[in-house]
């Protein structure tokens, strides 16, 4: 078996090496000066590409020939006409050039004729191809080895709407869209600061997806930013269709149940995380933006915690922590108490349970397992079904599984209550929603073997596992373990905003982390002194 694994491993390794070699950038290539050659080359590159358009124009008293090349619908026809073609065909446009004849035509076009917002001079043919594929229009000039790339991007995008995954009662309702440029703009509107850096890179051998690494210089730890960038650069796959691809390639513990890379659909959430010193990773084509490092406690935090008053959001935090325990422990505790620790329950309660379990042929464990699996099936069906049919799923679930199975004597009433409670609790922690059921089953099995002892064996093992995890070098359970007292302010309770004087110590650059504390303290003192002086 081991030799087989070894061979498999070697095979994967050689494959990875081969891919590495394939990933080399294509060599730079000069743009042909003669047009028949250029036409042939474009034809060869874009053969059988139905959406590739070119147009030849004669300008300057028909002395000069140009080819404009673009991708249909990627480049906006309106911008193309208004800012490129119309100025070019303007009769007076070339008067000055024809008189002087000193300047290079490309420079003249760039400076005097074209009115596109962004114009780049390109000398590499492969680069022009890349520009065309990104939605820009490229103007080739006969007899010149320089081409002009004009920003004419303008494709159909979804409008900014409220995301369905993260709804809030109070707080901004806008969400990211599929277009990277729009997303970057949404973030920039939140943080109007030149220190907000956005570094673009292209990932994916076939798709050449644009990925943007976004961080706040001076707050984010430079080592963290570097680590994120190197991990992204090491990615070597064919396609990046969603940020999930990136997540899987850069996460620390791919085999763990717990996510070590966070994602969000809301600009305000991402902005808050970047302001704490995290790094955001935008991926073109998806509204889900990744944030690293992602720590366990972030699953308990919601953006609304910071928009509502501190007391109410602290209470909600507590509720969420209770929900976390309920959703993983409740069925296990039920099994443990009924199997091993009957004496712990008050007698009256025990009698009630016994009465409702009288006609049930199965053990509590079988019941819990049956109901747990049923619920998972219902949930998955509810997500996958088209929305109109989803309603019927809930009816089937509530009536058939809940009501009928109790009446048929398959499950007892307490078990239905427990399943419902666990299910609802799971929904309160969306990032862990897909993870918690596994632990629920694990705890139920452990409880069936060794009762409460089994549950605690499993719990300790789980805590040890969580303690071994790290996300981009930061312990997953920080700031609880290792304990950092100054960061407790944003864990089980949320302190009022005016007490949050320091940035998270685990995340930020040490210089800003500790120094910021003293600076804030000094500033407070200064302002007090100034007030006194004013009097």
């Amino acid at each position, binding site marked *: 078996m081991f030799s087989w694994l070894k061979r498999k491993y070697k095979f994967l390794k050689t494959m990875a090496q081969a891919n590495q070699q394939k990933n080399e950038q294509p060599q730079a290539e000069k743009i042909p000066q003669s047009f028949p050659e250029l036409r042939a080359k474009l034809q060869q590159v874009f053969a059988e590409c139905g959406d590739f358009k070119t147009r030849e124009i004669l300008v300057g008293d028909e002395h000069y020939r140009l080819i404009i090349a673009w991708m249909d619908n990627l480049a906006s026809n309106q911008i193309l006409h208004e800012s490129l073609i119309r100025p070019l065909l303007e009769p007076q446009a070339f008067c000055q050039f024809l008189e002087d004849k000193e300047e290079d035509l490309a420079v003249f076009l760039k400076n005097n004729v074209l009115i596109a917002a962004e114009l780049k001079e390109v000398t590499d043919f492969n680069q022009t191809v890349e520009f065309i594929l990104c939605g820009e229009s490229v103007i080739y000039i006969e007899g010149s080895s320089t081409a002009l790339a004009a920003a004419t991007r303008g494709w159909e995008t979804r409008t900014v709407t409220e995301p369905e995954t993260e709804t809030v009662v109070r707080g901004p309702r806008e969400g990211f869209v599929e277009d990277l440029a729009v997303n970057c703009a949404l973030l920039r509107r939140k943080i109007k600061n030149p220190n907000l850096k956005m570094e673009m890179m292209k990932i994916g051998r076939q798709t050449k997806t644009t990925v943007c690494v976004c961080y706040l210089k001076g707050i984010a730890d430079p080592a963290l930013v570097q680590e994120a960038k190197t991990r992204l650069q090491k990615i070597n796959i064919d396609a990046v269709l969603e940020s999930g691809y990136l997540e899987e390639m850069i996460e620390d513990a791919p085999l763990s149940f717990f996510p070590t890379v966070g994602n969000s659909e809301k600009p305000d959430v991402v902005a808050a995380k970047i302001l704490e010193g995290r790094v955001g990773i935008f991926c073109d084509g998806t509204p889900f933006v990744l944030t690293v490092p992602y720590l366990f406690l972030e699953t308990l935090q919601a953006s609304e915690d910071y928009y509502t008053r501190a007391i109410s959001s602290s209470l909600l935090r507590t509720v969420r922590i209770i929900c976390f325990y309920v959703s993983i422990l409740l069925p296990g505790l039920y099994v443990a108490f009924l199997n091993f620790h009957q004496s712990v329950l008050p007698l009256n309660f025990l009698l009630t349970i016994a009465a409702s379990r009288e006609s049930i042929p199965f053990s509590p464990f079988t019941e819990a397992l049956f109901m747990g699996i049923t619920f998972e099936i219902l949930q998955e069906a509810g997500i996958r079904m088209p929305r109109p049919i989803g309603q019927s799923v809930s009816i089937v679930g509530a009536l058939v599984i809940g009501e009928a199975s109790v009446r048929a004597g398959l499950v007892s009433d307490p078990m239905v209550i427990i399943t419902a409670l666990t299910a609802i609790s799971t929904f309160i922690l969306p990032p862990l929603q897909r993870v918690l059921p596994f632990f629920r089953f694990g705890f139920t099995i452990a409880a069936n073997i060794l009762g409460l002892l089994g549950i605690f*064996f499993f719990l300790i093992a789980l805590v*040890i596992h969580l303690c*071994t995890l790290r996300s981009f070098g930061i312990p997953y359970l920080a700031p609880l*373990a290792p304990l950092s007292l100054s960061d407790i302010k944003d864990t089980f309770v949320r302190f009022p905003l005016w007490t949050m004087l320091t940035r998270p110590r685990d995340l930020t650059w040490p210089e800003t982390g500790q120094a910021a504390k003293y600076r804030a303290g000094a500033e407070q003192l200064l302002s007090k002194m100034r007030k006194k002086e004013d009097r």
Partner: protein
Amino acid sequence: MMTNVKISGYQLALLIMGFLFGSTAVLNPTAMAGQDAWLAYILAWVGGFMLIWLYVRIALINPSLTLVEILKVTFGKYLGTVIALLYIWYFLHLAALVLRDFGEHMNVTVFYRTPMTFIISCFALLIAYCLRKGLEVTGRAAEILMPYLFIFVIIIFFLLIPEYDTNNLFPFLEKGLTPVIQVAFGVLTFPFGETVTFLMIFPALYSPGQLKKVSFAAFGVMGFIILGIIVRDLLSLGPDLLTRLVFPPSLSTELTPELQLEPLISVNFLLGGWVKITVCLYAALVGIAQLLGLNDYKHLVLPLVLLAVGLAMWLYEDLFKMMDWTANVYPYYAFPLQFGIPLLILLVAKIRKLA
């Protein structure tokens, strides 16, 4: 060697607290002193402070050296190795002892028909996992788990208030001071003296300047909590019942009105025992690795845990043999290791300094 492992002062304090809590709070070693249990305990507690002072002194004189290395430095290569082997055996023995205590407790209280080997093996599996992940992870896990232990102790203490009867404290010193001192000597060796194990862990402390503060604080806090437990058992059960029971806390928690909180005692035992066994086996593993001159102890975890489980089953025939042995033989067996040899180390260091 294993100096790259670093834990914070808070983590070390939690490990010491968990270690002291260990099986102490469930076995209640002061029970034999009857109504004077609290006095015997306080005497032992004071002695415990002297012992930890001794250990801290040794650790400060030999910074970044573990006990095995200190022994080699102090007594020379051969004698040092022999004594180090003695200590490794002691740590292993201690781990096996706690494992057996745990198994017996579970068998007596809840899992009457589950084979003890199975319970012990499950526990050992957990500890093996923990040891494989290393001391840093153990420390961090302790940061998460130890608060539960304190919460449970406090809950039980306050829920039992209606059952307390102050008459249980009298008559004071009925049989004179001698039996009290005898019990106090027992308590000094179990649990306070057992912290000699931490001489293997002190070098891992991130900032050695904290060592004294941290270990004294841990002794103070945990000593106070155990005092609370002992007083709780004494006040709720009475001296007569206390001396007859093997696991007094299990019975005293059953007295809680309207509730039965016995499982909390088991869970506390689990948390404390987990820390204690992990620390003991870690010390033994590091000792073995250092004697052999290895960089990493992790390869030896599984066989040593298997050995510890075997020892746990082999050392004692039954519960009563074990109780008898721990009460009457253990103090004399452990005291030289806990006090004699450390004192000798300190003296040798002092003489060398003078010379």
